């Protein structure tokens, strides 16, 4: 079973704090113990310099005057280890998911290797919520998450469970 998690942590100042945090995270080499970064790749956005990535995503927001809303969508796809047990497969699947989102949004992805029990590889997809063609905001509801899960299910052949993670109130 694959797991698609949407992290909903937007209450961080004006949201820009978490936005910057997400961009920095996909570039990070030293993650949790036992976790390793395999690949960082950008779609419609620079993927070699975190500062450029942030500026290019923010530039699109400014163009459409959408700087104050939910700035970023952070999705995590954990691949089932029975089907995805090597880095190349994980990267290829992540590429297809990112290309699907790239049709309308800027995306930067990071594939990580970490044994989470049922999964050996997972991918972070940081998506700019502003549509590059229309300027409309991505509606990150249950329905949209479900549609993406169906896309992943069709891609991997595994059932894709959806989860929404909210910020830990104790933090």
């Amino acid at each position, binding site marked *: 079973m694959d797991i698609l998690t949407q992290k909903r942590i937007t209450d961080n100042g004006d949201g820009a704090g978490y936005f910057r945090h997400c961009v920095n995270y996909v570039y990070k080499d030293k993650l949790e113990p036992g976790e390793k970064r395999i690949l960082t*790749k*950008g*779609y*419609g*956005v*620079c*993927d*070699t*310099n975190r500062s*450029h990535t942030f*500026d*290019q995503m923010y*530039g*699109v927001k*400014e*163009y*459409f005057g959408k700087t104050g809303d939910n700035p970023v969508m952070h999705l995590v796809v954990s691949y089932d280890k029975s089907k995805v047990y090597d880095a190349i497969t994980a990267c290829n699947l992540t590429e297809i998911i990112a290309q699907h989102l*790239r049709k309308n949004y*800027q995306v930067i992805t990071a594939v990580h290797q970490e044994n989470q029990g049922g999964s050996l590889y997972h991918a972070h997809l940081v998506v700019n919520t*502003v549509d*590059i*063609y*229309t*300027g*409309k905001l991505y509606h990150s509801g249950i329905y949209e998450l479900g549609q993406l899960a169906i896309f992943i299910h069709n891609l991997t052949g595994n059932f894709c469970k959806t989860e929404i993670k909210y910020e830990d109130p104790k933090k």
Partner: protein
Amino acid sequence: MRKPEEKKTVRRTVLMTKDTDNDIIREAKERGIKPNAVMNERLIHHKTDNTPSKMAEFQDFANEAIRMIKPYSEKDAKLLERKANKLWTF
């Protein structure tokens, strides 16, 4: 209802040719947005031809070029990265 002085927008009548009007309506239809949004975009960003969709496409090419050049010259890859980012102006 908001008082006129509290409103964030103003209403102004603009005269234009039928062709311009048709073009705005066509673009709005194509992009799935309101003609009002097309008009505002054209007014605000009249100084540049760059649009987010064009720049995103350009950046995909730049990323590919940087990936290709990086194994041969880290310095040239950095230069390309910087030059590509400089073009992100709206």
